[in-house]
């Protein structure tokens, strides 16, 4: 507790100090240090130091809590597990921020940014730490408010206002639902279903479960890159933290209910997220949809775990809980990295539209490599962190298919196929993103004129890659710890008499160890092939001459001839047209010497199209209809009141 107090005080004080100093012209302009990434002003340095130190001070706690595993307490382990991504991503996005918010922003705005950034970090820490409902709710609301301020940072664009508004509404709705949940929690015996639904919706709004994900693709593109990273890698996970920490009331929330709702939400979310990621044209929007997919997969893991407990299959449960836990960490690191890298891209050419970027690999080689590696890992390809998580879930589903009854086999089959299809489509999405931004030729003047970025921005990406490599090597250990902790919670998570043997954590560890060895073999093999290719073939030592790309005899190849990101996915978009409902905007060439032509393909969000817009239309119509009651005739009002009274009378006497 004292650790947390220290970290909180550090964060809050540095935030306040930064704001106060920024108000004063002279102190705000005080340059303390001049690094390769630009000058570091006094308030910024203070806030940055506060954030990094505050977060770092909690790291030992996390490490010990996870290391202790089953011998420690469940809530402590859970807290540490969800704190870990916040610490990593928080520190790295704090380090990324000064370079991202360079001299283009006024001192006061920078001060405000850091004020809200540190306060958001502080509230996130509080959310994971506190155990009193009131404080939790306050912290949760504060987290929403401060992050809202950060999303609104670029408030001058009108579109950004709309996005921030949607985010604000989502936060408030989530807060209201959670308040309802905490009210019902005291009387959960009488309304278990209401309690569960309000909790699931409230936390689901934060975690981006399907249909509730509406704010993710809106808020992420407009927020500054470090904030998007923090939102996507740190904050949305907290929805699952809430579910695991607050929604599990033994005996009241039944396992099958929890399992079915999470599994079905998860599968829908994963599919919807990845489907809608395909046609996206804004890099950060695409990443946001990919977050929806990953959150869906995590929900699948948790839901399948609870269902397996219900089916008395402890082995499946432990596999899928371990999968969900590893997925949270892996996703946080790689998604945080990709968001920061999208910040690099934006910094370099002030453009995030995939159809206008291209060829940045030559200008930002480090960022390009990091982006490719993280993108491959996020597609679930081996040997990446997400692959380690997915294979555990695959094995769990496979055991369900192989040995279960009809119901178990059907659900497992659905999960199995969802995983496979999401994997294949995620590979498409990320190859689109990586290739459209970094490969090929620049597609617009902005991309052609991209300039170099501060070195620190690049180093953040490498730090992420290093961290994920460490976590990859630790994943067998982490998986076994996760399984042990979940296995040990028979009083809290499930009835005592359910599980009979716990030999399974060893299996997780063994499987992942084998995989690690195998990945090492792959890398060594690749290196050997590379050496043979470079050293031992005739002509291989000679520098290969450079020519134009083969263009089928076309005399003057231009960058406009190459495939854009939209063109790359166009066949898939049309294949899923009934779901995605693509809209075409065509300006056909006219005449023999056409001057202008354009083709644009865009898709609106699925949840918005299918649920929110109809709901809004309905509400508007209802409002217009009820407006008729307000006719201005006093008689009518009195009549309504009398009718209401009568109805109450009848209700009161009839019951």
């Amino acid at each position, binding site marked *: 507790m004292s650790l947390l107090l220290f970290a909180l005080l550090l964060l809050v004080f540095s935030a306040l100090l930064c704001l106060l100093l920024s108000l004063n012209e002279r102190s705000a302009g005080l340059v303390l240090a001049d690094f390769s990434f630009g000058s570091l002003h006094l308030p910024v340095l203070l806030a940055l130091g506060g954030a990094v130190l505050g977060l770092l001070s909690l790291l030992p706690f996390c490490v010990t809590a996870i290391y202790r595993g089953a011998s420690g307490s469940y809530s402590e382990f859970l807290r540490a597990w969800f704190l870990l991504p916040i610490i990593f991503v928080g520190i790295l996005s704090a380090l990324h921020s000064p370079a991202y918010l360079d001299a283009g922003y006024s001192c006061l705005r920078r001060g405000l940014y850091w004020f809200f950034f540190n306060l958001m970090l502080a509230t996130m820490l509080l959310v994971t730490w506190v155990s009193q409902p009131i404080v939790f709710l306050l912290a949760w609301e504060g987290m929403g408010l401060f992050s809202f301020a950060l999303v609104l940072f670029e408030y001058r664009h009108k579109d950004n206002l709309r996005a921030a508004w949607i985010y604000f509404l989502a936060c408030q709705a989530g807060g209201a639902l959670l308040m309802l949940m905490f009210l019902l929690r005291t009387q959960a015996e009488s309304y278990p279903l209401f309690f569960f639904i309000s909790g699931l919706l409230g936390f689901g709004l934060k975690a981006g479960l399907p249909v509730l994900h509406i704010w993710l693709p809106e808020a992420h593109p407009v927020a500054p890159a470090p904030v998007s990273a923090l939102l996507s890698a740190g904050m949305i996970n907290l929805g699952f933290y809430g579910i695991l920490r607050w929604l599990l009331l033994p005996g009241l929330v039944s396992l099958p209910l929890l399992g079915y709702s999470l599994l079905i939400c998860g599968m829908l979310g994963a599919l919807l997220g990845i489907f809608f990621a395909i046609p996206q044209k804004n890099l950060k929007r695409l990443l946001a949809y990919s977050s929806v997919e990953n959150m869906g997969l995590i929900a699948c893991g948790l839901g399948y775990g609870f269902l397996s407990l219900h089916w008395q299959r402890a082995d499946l449960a432990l596999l899928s809980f371990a999968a969900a836990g590893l997925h949270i960490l892996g996703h946080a690191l790689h998604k945080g990295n990709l968001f920061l890298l999208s910040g690099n891209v934006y910094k370099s050419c002030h453009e995030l539209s995939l159809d206008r970027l291209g060829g940045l690999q030559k200008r930002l080689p480090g960022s390009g490599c990091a982006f490719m590696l993280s993108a491959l890992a996020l597609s679930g390809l081996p040997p990446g962190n997400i692959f380690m998580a997915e294979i555990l879930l695959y094995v769990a589903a496979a055991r369900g298919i*192989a040995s279960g009854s009809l119901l178990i086999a059907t659900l497992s089959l659905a999960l199995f196929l969802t995983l496979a299809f999401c994997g294949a489509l995620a*590979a498409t999405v990320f190859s689109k993103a990586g290739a459209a931004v970094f*490969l090929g030729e620049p597609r617009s003047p902005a991309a052609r004129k991209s300039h170099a970025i501060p070195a620190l921005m690049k180093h953040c990406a490498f730090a992420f890659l290093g961290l994920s490599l460490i976590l990859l090597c630790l994943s067998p250990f982490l998986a076994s710890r996760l399984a042990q902790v979940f296995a040990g919670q028979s009083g809290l998570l499930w009835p005592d008499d359910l599980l009979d043997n716990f030999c399974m954590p060893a299996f997780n560890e063994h499987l992942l160890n084998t995989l690690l060895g195998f990945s090492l073999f792959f890398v060594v093999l690749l290196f050997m092939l590379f050496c043979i290719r470079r050293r031992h073939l005739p002509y291989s030592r000679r520098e290969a001459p450079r020519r134009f790309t083969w263009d089928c005899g076309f005399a003057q190849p231009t960058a406009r001839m190459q495939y854009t990101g939209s063109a790359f996915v166009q066949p898939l978009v049309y294949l899923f047209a009934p779901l995605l409902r693509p809209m075409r905007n065509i300006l056909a060439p006219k005449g023999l010497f056409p001057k202008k032509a354009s083709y644009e393909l865009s898709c609106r969000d699925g949840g918005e199209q299918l649920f929110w817009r109809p709901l809004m239309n309905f509400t508007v119509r209802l409002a217009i209809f009820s407006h008729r009651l307000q006719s201005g005739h006093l008689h009518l009002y009195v009549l309504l009141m009398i009718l209401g009274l009568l109805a109450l009378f009848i209700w009161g006497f009839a019951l």
Partner: protein
Amino acid sequence: MSTFIWFCGLVLSLLLCPLLPGLVGKLKGIFVGCPGPSVWQPYYDMLKLLRKGSVYSQTTTWVLPLAPLVTLAALLCAMLFLPFAFVDSPLAFEGDVIVFFYFLALGRVLGVLAALDTGSSFAGMGASREMQFSSLAELGMFCILAFLLRLSGRFSMSGLLNAADSSMWSYSGTALFLVAIAFFILLLAENCRVPFDDPDTHLELTMIHEAMVLDYGGPDLGIIHYAAALKLWLFTSICSLMIVPAGLLSGFGGLLVFVLAQFLLGGLLALVEAVSARFRFLKVPQFLLGVPGLAIIAIIMLLLFK
């Protein structure tokens, strides 16, 4: 002893795989009434290519030269899990199926990235089609895996593929037959064979795989050809291992039958290629979606009927 047989199967696969496209080319030639190229032609081609230098486009980055190596390394890693010659792989573990197919996917994604790296519109076209078809094929593949999983109860490549002993054929033979057909269709799609893609075409607009590798030359192209041949061999192996009952054969007889089965399937491939024309690209997804359909019918039969 059995490990030795398996190892022989592995080495033979590595050595003989270019023979498979050679055989297909030869047979196709015979079917259409000309002598056709020699069966050894792929070997000659690869050796020739390996001895050449390479030229890269100005647009390209490190992705282009790296992609063939990653593809080959991924295939070499993945093939360690196959039960060559009906002997369980000594490296098998539960879940290696996923590793197998994800390594294949890794190779494919790198190939697509390399194609987009060139900035060529043809390569982009090929890459786009490849991603579309392969994501549908992946769905079909995992349906087939789920069927085999339910049938055998084991989730390793060796377990799945050696499941079909003779008793299985008698009590769920029809479903297995269905799945074998589905897998053969996938084999055609994944290896860019005729109804889906024409490996011998000369028009860039109609190509998938060949369009993606337009910018390669020299040793890189040789490696790509070898990797394609190896992939074809792996897929025919899976097909034959799936069909042929495992308990019947052991030892060197199994090895012989294994190798012969690949060539038989190669013959079948040549027959299909000789008598059919390439689909319109718009039809391909429809056809590919039939594969999960078939596999799911088989799963339904297995789940609800036995």
